[in-house]
């Protein structure tokens, strides 16, 4: 599993403390039942810090809960719940609400086990507890999903939780719909529960007041002798009071007990429920004051729904020297109220299911529509490039259809714009090419001899300083070859400038071919029949060889046309850098001198 956060143990502590805190402030429903929202923390922990840590949080919280009235059963079911839902989420992702339904299905399948664990809890109450737990689970799962999705993007939490995923719009809508549906209904359930409980208390208050009034009425109507009989707890007075209180109780399943000062029950009307002969029998139970001299008595050590089911309302009032208890078993009232609340919870469950169904439908519609829009947008460049029309299937959702149409319009506009731009671009490209061509031409004209295609004087004077600098750095020599064509003027005068040009052109080509053989040699045409060659060399012997080779090349006959072949010679003077000069002019001058010397020698040898 990818590391979700950088500080897991720190977060385990925080989550555990929050879970314990939430466990200690459950929302009371009624009759000892509470709704605990600790599952929110457990599930959120699964996504925010990982399943193992979430289980750790669950175990610590549930163990802590044991010390405050929790049960082993709750501990085990919490761990199983977190483990199952957590594993499902890890394997299949989706959301906790979905996996909660799977868990609920497992719970239904293990219904007999649940009933066995519930012990002597009546079926109605057991079903209520089940439905309550189911609703709580679904709500907690939903809130956990919301927290897990949106908390990491809140400023301040981004550094703690590394979630960087974006949200599906459909999921956001689902969360909003579900929360907006469930939360108000849950609030209503709480309000209704409180209201039902208060109604019961009001009924009990009324009965307590009636009892008190009846007792006061009877006490005030007693004559002195009857008061004496009362104080002596005579059978006759017992019988009289029995008749009076029996009439007061009527068909109701209630009980009246009179206790004397010593806590002895001297009269009990309707002994079916509680068999108290002395106040010492009121042990092993807990009591809560709900009104003046009105108590709820649970014959167990802890408050639970089962305890409430066995509970009684006791209203005490004094009657002369005795204390009169009106005992109202709450079993029937509680079952009735629980049944009503159970129906409310079933309704809430149905609403959750319907809301889920609607969110699925909406999600599908949204997803489909947005998918189409996304596809449309994705295909836009290709289609535009291919100049194809954009097709969009109507979704029947006006906003999406309008968006699609707008995109189509934009695409059309864009296509038109692109076509215009393309055309202009093409024109621009052509013009640019032309301009570049012209530039190149100009450059060529500026740097190359158009006739011989050799570098011209400009180029020579531009490049030579670089050659000198590179030579200085590399400490390598170079030499200049000053090449002068012998008797060029004669050819030019004899055969014309046109033929002379052809001769120069062919000689230039020969020099280029020579360069191809000797890449270190770079020829230039300075003017007329003056050619210069720059040679980077390793040794002087190499220069001599190359010079001789060049001379040989130059002496080869040149065919000017079909009939005319010219035998030319070239005089080559070589100057060495830096020996023969540090500047270009010095080197040219030296090379020219040497060329002239050779030309003179050649002429003299030819004349001789």
């Amino acid at each position, binding site marked *: 599993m990818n590391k979700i956060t950088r500080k897991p143990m720190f977060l385990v502590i925080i989550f555990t403390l929050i879970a314990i805190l939430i466990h200690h402030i459950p929302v009371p429903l009624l009759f000892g039942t509470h709704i605990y929202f600790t599952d929110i923390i457990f599930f959120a922990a699964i996504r925010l810090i990982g399943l193992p840590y979430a289980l750790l949080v669950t175990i610590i919280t549930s163990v802590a809960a044991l010390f405050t009235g929790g049960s082993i059963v709750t501990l085990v079911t919490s761990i199983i719940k977190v483990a199952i839902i957590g594993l499902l989420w890890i394997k299949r992702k989706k959301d906790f609400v979905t996996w909660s339904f799977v868990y609920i299905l497992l719970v239904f399948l293990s219904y007999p086990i649940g009933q066995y664990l519930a012990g002597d809890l009546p079926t109605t109450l057991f079903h209520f507890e089940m439905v309550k737990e189911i609703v709580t689970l679904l709500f907690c799962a939903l809130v956990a999903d919301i927290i897990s999705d949106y908390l990491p993007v809140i400023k301040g939490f981004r550094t703690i939780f590394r979630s960087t995923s974006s949200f599906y719009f459909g999921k956001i809508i689902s969360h909003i719909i579900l929360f907006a549906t469930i939360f108000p209904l849950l609030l209503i359930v709480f309000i209704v529960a409180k209201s039902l409980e208060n109604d019961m208390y009001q009924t009990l208050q009324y009965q307590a007041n009636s009892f008190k009034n009846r007792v006061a009425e009877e006490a005030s109507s007693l004559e002195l002798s009857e008061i004496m009989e009362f104080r002596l707890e005579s*059978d006759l007075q017992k019988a009289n009071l029995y008749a009076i209180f029996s009439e007061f109780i009527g068909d109701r399943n209630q009980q009246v007990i009179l206790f004397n000062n010593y806590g002895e029950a001297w009269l009990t009307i309707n002994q079916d429920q509680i068999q108290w002969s002395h106040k010492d029998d009121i042990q092993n139970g807990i009591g809560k004051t709900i009104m003046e001299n009105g108590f709820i008595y649970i014959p167990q050590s802890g408050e639970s729904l089962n305890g409430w089911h066995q509970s009684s309302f006791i209203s005490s009032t004094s009657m002369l020297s005795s204390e009169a208890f009106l005992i109202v078993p709450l079993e029937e009232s509680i079952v009735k109220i629980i049944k009503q609340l159970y129906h409310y919870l079933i309704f809430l469950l149905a609403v959750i299911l319907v809301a889920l169904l609607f969110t699925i439908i909406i999600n599908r519609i949204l997803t489909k529509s947005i998918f189409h829009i996304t596809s449309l947008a994705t295909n836009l460049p290709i289609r535009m490039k291919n100049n194809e029309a954009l097709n969009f299937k109507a979704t029947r959702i006006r906003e999406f259809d309008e968006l699609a149409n707008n995109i189509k319009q934009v695409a059309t506009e864009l296509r038109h714009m692109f076509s215009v731009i393309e055309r202009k671009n093409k024109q621009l490209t052509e013009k640019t090419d032309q301009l570049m061509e012209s530039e190149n031409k100009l450059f060529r004209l500026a740097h190359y001899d158009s006739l011989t295609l050799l570098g011209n004087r400009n180029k020579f004077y531009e490049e030579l300083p670089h050659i000198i600098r590179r030579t200085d750095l590399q400490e390598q020599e170079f030499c200049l070859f000053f090449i002068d064509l012998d008797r060029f003027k004669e050819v030019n005068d004899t055969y014309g400038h046109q033929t002379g040009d052809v001769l120069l052109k062919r000689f230039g080509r020969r020099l280029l071919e020579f360069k191809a053989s000797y890449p270190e040699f770079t020829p230039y045409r300075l003017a007329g029949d003056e050619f210069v060659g720059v040679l980077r060399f390793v040794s002087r012997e190499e220069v001599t060889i190359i010079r001789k080779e060049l001379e040989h090349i130059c002496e080869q006959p040149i065919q000017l046309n079909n009939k005319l072949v010219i035998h030319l010679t070239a005089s080559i003077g070589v100057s060495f850098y830096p020996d023969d000069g540090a500047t270009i002019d010095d080197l040219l001058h030296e090379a020219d001198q040497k060329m002239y010397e050779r030309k003179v020698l050649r002429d003299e040898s030819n004349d001789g």
Partner: protein
Amino acid sequence: MIIIDKKIFYLALYIVIGLLLTACSKSAFIPIEQTPLANYKEKTENNTVEISEKKVLKVWTHDDILQGSLTAFSEKFPNVEVEIKEMGKSTLVSQYRSSLVMNKSPDIFVIPDEFLGSFSSINGFENLLDEYYDDPTYLDNRPEGLMKPYIDSQSQEMNIVPLLYFPYVMYYRVDILEELGYPSDPQDLAVYLNNTYNWLTMARDLKEKGYYITDTEVTFLDTLFRANYFMDEQNEYIGSSNEWLDIHKTAITIYDEQLDFGKTIWEQETQQALRDDELIMFIGASYMDHHLKGWAPEQEGKWAITTLPFELTAIDQYNSMSMAISSQSEDKMLAWEFVKHMTNDMLNIYTGIKQDPYFQNQNLQPVYWESLDSNMPGKPHVFDDDIKMIWDVTLKNLNWGEPFTMENVHRFHDDVKSRIKYEQQLLQEFDKAERE
């Protein structure tokens, strides 16, 4: 100064907060013992009999008959001082009941049997059948018939015990009956006279011969009404039962045929009739032997005692007494010892007696024991006063000359039933509910 790592500090802080949250858990419910529901006043009592310091045992009575037995008790419990307070019979009931209500009662009450009904169904006395007072010999040593009216068979409670009691017996002249051919043995005579026919036949026969076997017809009725109880344990009025109606009819026959002497035994003439051998049989309480001896001392040896005719059972309520231990007593065990001592002493009257030279009975003890042991059908009841009051009025009318007829008898019973009807219904419904 100790420098703590920041992380460890915060970790420790979180753990402390967590523990505090774990510990803090509040519920609106509290143990029921802490609510006002469980409040009551503890009874203080001494559960031991061992007396190491001086104790005072308070006894209230209308007639101090206990002095004779006090010496022996004082020897047994030298540290105990018994304070006996006498009070008038006429105010006894209200004083006793008030003391219970005001929480100022004595340790022991001595109650005249005629007022037992006023104390039979109230709270305030100790149940002497409780295992706290367990003494198996106490009941075993006493006649069952004597104790039966004191025991509530439903609740198995016995709050009052008989102290002094005078069973009604029949006194008769052995010699005359023998002479006239009637059974003279006490047992034989008792068997013979269990039958009203035999009694009437005998009465008629003896009258012809100048003898009377009863002083007045009213004696029977008076014996019935003053020495019996008319309400049974089921709150049924048994005064008009068939057995008792037979006695009424017999009484009326006696009246109609004038089979009686005509004056009560307390009249001089009647006493003279005794001496003149005219009245040879009469019914009276066991203390009547003393009076008989005074009225006809010369007839010593001629009389005998047997049980009442018609299988009647009667105990003189006006001279009998009972005892009860107050629940407010702080020395209940000591009080019980006192009660046992006194009642055992009084029982000796009937267990110690053997022969009396005045009477021919070889052994008087079985006669008295059988009289005491016979089952009395009724029990002391809260209606006793009302019934007795109505009977007193009826008796007065009869003494003033109203004809003694079954009609008047029935009217008496009707008056009683009418008087008790409403409360009887209440009691019966209450009993029914209790049993269910």
